[in-house]
């Protein structure tokens, strides 16, 4: 990963703006990546110091020093170095330094200390030459490590990693990140929230008009002090954010030695205001279930299914991102469906806990029988159901659970303005809960 030293950015007002590679810059980056990779390939079997010297030449001639340093770092990260294990440098040093101390103490004042004689004496006792011992004396130092494998990456891969790495390196200095997300792919959204949870970050979710969510992310201690302690975790979340269809990000960073407070922005970039979002990515089993439900609706079922664009959250407990939403033709509250498939049993138990605490919406969880869970864990009168399926989920069997859940009363949300509030991002769905910012946590 690149570090803040590799970032090529400028300050513009209170903002930190990355210098994007234009066509010429991209060409230069490719050229540099090719040069660094070629040098690495030609140095297999030689020391890191030799390779670094060769790379230094490339860097000195490069018009853009930071670009060269960043590309060098990424190529270096992809190299495989190892110490030469033919001789044991530690043992050699020990033998030579002990003998040198004795020799220095034993010599008369008139006789100078003879370094080469000491090395030759130890070499003779080990059956090696003095030159071999001299060469091996510090062979275990980083600079003496031998390049065993050159990177398998292409120049294009290195340049792509450079562009992502620039943004990640800025986020290393972030104290807080706010994302605006318009995504119709439950799987990608779920993966994003799983990353937040995995990295033990906290967040608040609020609905942004009718078009998506605003998610403010930082760490537990952040409410007392703006710390960059969570910067690495924020940087590691970026790849999951980039997999969403439309997103933008605003990071508060502390930049430079003076830790100047600046704002950093980036976005998916491709979206224009009136452009329809790309079609959602659906898991195969969800797509099959949706097709089955649509067939049943065409055959007279009162339930119409669509891909859900809703996020249900319960502060302090977690987030639930349904895959589908089913609306009854008589206009009753929708019922959500989350397909857990072959996930872990833990995931199922977490959903059950969320449902018992009250998600503020009706929902059916679909889990494979391989997870060894029973549908009876949720009470019949609960506004949530667990549909345990064998093989593939059946649309008809799912609708039976949906009918039951639709008639159940909703579990009361906890008191106060911080009650769980489903945040709805598309206008056709009813907006459950209040319009106030809805806090959530992992």
């Amino acid at each position, binding site marked *: 990963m690149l570090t803040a030293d590799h970032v090529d950015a400028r300050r513009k007002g209170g903002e930190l703006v990355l210098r994007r590679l234009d066509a010429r810059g991209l060409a230069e980056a490719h050229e540099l990546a090719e040069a660094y990779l070629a040098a690495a390939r030609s140095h297999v079997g030689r020391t890191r110091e030799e390779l670094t010297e060769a790379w230094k030449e490339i860097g000195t001639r490069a018009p853009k020093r930071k670009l060269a340093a960043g590309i060098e770092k990424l190529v270096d990260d992809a190299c495989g170095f190892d110490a030469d294990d033919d001789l044991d440098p530690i043992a050699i040093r020990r033998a030579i330094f002990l003998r040198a101390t004795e020799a*220095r103490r034993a010599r008369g004042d008139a006789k100078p200390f003879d*370094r080469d004689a000491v090395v030759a004496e130890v070499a003779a006792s080990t059956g090696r030459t003095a030159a071999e011992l001299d060469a091996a004396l*510090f062979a275990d*130092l980083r600079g003496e490590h031998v390049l065993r494998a050159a990177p398998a990456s292409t120049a294009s891969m290195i340049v792509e990693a450079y562009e992502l790495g620039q943004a990640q390196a800025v986020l290393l200095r972030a104290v807080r990140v706010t994302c605006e997300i318009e995504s119709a792919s439950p799987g990608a959204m779920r993966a994003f929230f799983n990353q937040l949870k995995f990295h033990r970050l906290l967040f608040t979710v609020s609905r942004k008009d009718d078009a998506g969510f605003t998610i403010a992310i930082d760490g*537990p*201690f952040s409410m007392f002090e703006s710390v960059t302690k969570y910067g690495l975790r924020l940087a590691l979340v970026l790849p999951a954010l980039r997999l969403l269809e439309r997103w933008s990000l605003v990071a508060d960073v502390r930049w430079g030695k003076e830790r100047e407070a600046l704002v950093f922005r980036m976005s998916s970039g491709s979206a224009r205001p009136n452009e329809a979002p790309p079609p959602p990515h659906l898991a195969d089993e969800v797509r099959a279930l949706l097709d089955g439900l649509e067939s049943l609706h065409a055959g007279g079922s009162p339930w119409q299914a669509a891909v859900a664009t809703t996020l249900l959250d319960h502060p302090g407990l977690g987030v639930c991102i349904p895959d589908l939403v089913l609306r009854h033709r008589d206009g009753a509250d929708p019922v959500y469906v989350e397909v857990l498939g072959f996930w872990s049993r833990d995931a199922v138990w977490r959903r059950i806990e969320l449902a018992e605490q009250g998600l503020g919406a009706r929902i059916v969880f679909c889990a494979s029988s391989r997870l060894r869970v029973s549908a009876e864990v949720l009470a019949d009168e609960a506004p949530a159901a667990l549909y345990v399926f064998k093989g593939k989920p059946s649309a008809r069997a799912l609708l039976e659970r949906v009918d039951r859940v639709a008639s159940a009363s909703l579990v009361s949300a906890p008191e106060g303005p911080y009650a769980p509030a489903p945040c709805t991002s598309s206008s056709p769905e009813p907006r459950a809960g209040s319009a106030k910012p809805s*806090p959530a946590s992992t």
Partner: protein
Amino acid sequence: MAASLAFRAGTIELRGVARDRAGVPAALAWDDRAACFRAPAIAYASVIAALRGAAIEVDDDVRRDDELASGARVHREPRFFQAEAVGAWRAAEGRGMVVLPTGAGKTHVAVMAIDAVRRSTLVVAPTLDLVRQWYDLLRATFAVPVGVVGGGDHDVQPITVTTYDSAYLHMEHLGARFGLVVFDECHHLPGPTYALAARLSVAPFRLGLTATPERADGREAELEALLGPTVYRRDIGELAGEYLADYETVQVDVELLPDERAEHDAERALYLAFVAKNGIRLGSPRGFGEFVMRSAQSMEGRRAMRAYRRQRELAFAASGKLAYVEHLLDRHRDDRALLFTQDNATAYRVARRFLVPVITHQTKVTERSDILAGFAAGKYAAIVTSKVLNEGVDVQEANVAVVLSGSGSVREHVQRLGRILRKRDGKHAVLYELVTSRTAETGTSERRREHDAYR
């Protein structure tokens, strides 16, 4: 639902209390993200006191520290100032900083504090060498398990030793597990990162140890909030002779050889011409940073940076210095000498040329231990090092220090002197400072000698 207080990731969470409940301590702020009250872990003691004052009952599940199964099994008679220091620290309710000169036995103050409190203890030290030294000492002193976190180890025990880096990284998990935290060389603590090691811990007992709390950036004032006040202080002049070895400092001026002088002056002129041309004021606090920035922006600048490095390198490792090192190694071949350099490259150059063992951050722990043991046993007469032995590492037998090169830091210079001041019968210590005449090193030397120890 009963209110509960728990440790979470370097903070404490209060749950089961309504947001608008009266009397909730001010240190606890409502956290929208998790729908609970939250305070920094360091506020734990004051939060508990305030909750009691407000008659808010809570199930306190915060602390995970234990009473040590036994106290110290080895008791050494403390020196008067060590006993006074621990007494002052206890009188301050087990919070605060003890300032004693290097070699005066700060470690023993910590051992006495751990023995007095008898709670699970975390010792935080700046380097892996010091971690290893603390580990050895604590294992020899206490009968309870001692663990290490850092340098590839993650073994949390009732007494654990770690580095500042690891404490910063792991305190959000470890912060409730220790009743006492000892910050060795605690002048490292202030600052945006390491300070979190103190803020993310609930430990009610805190002890800071240092010889030199003062920092160039003046942030030593933060130590009081992180650890407590300075509870005891003795300076080097009060203890030299009786409790520290007698010592002298010798400054040796070395001339560059004619060809070195010519190259040095040419490179220096080139570097200074760039500085002048760009209107950079090197005397101002940001001057050098500006030079670094400007030098990266052009070929001419990069050449100027290379010139700066070269003239510095010539001053640091002048051949006259190396010749004088040869003389000193011979002169002190029956003593124990520590040779200090500013950079690793010079340390390795000295090691290779004079066949002297070298310790840098690249030296593995086992080899470091072997070299230090060999030095203690007299198998080696000298060790060359850059900065890793500057602080705290106990090389009791060392009586000669040779500073080949260093920064302008007063603290670094005092710490290096401190390495040879451990008291031993008949010991007379000497510190040689080799300075290349008519180079920037002359000014650097003057800056670092601005301390009572050198007057």
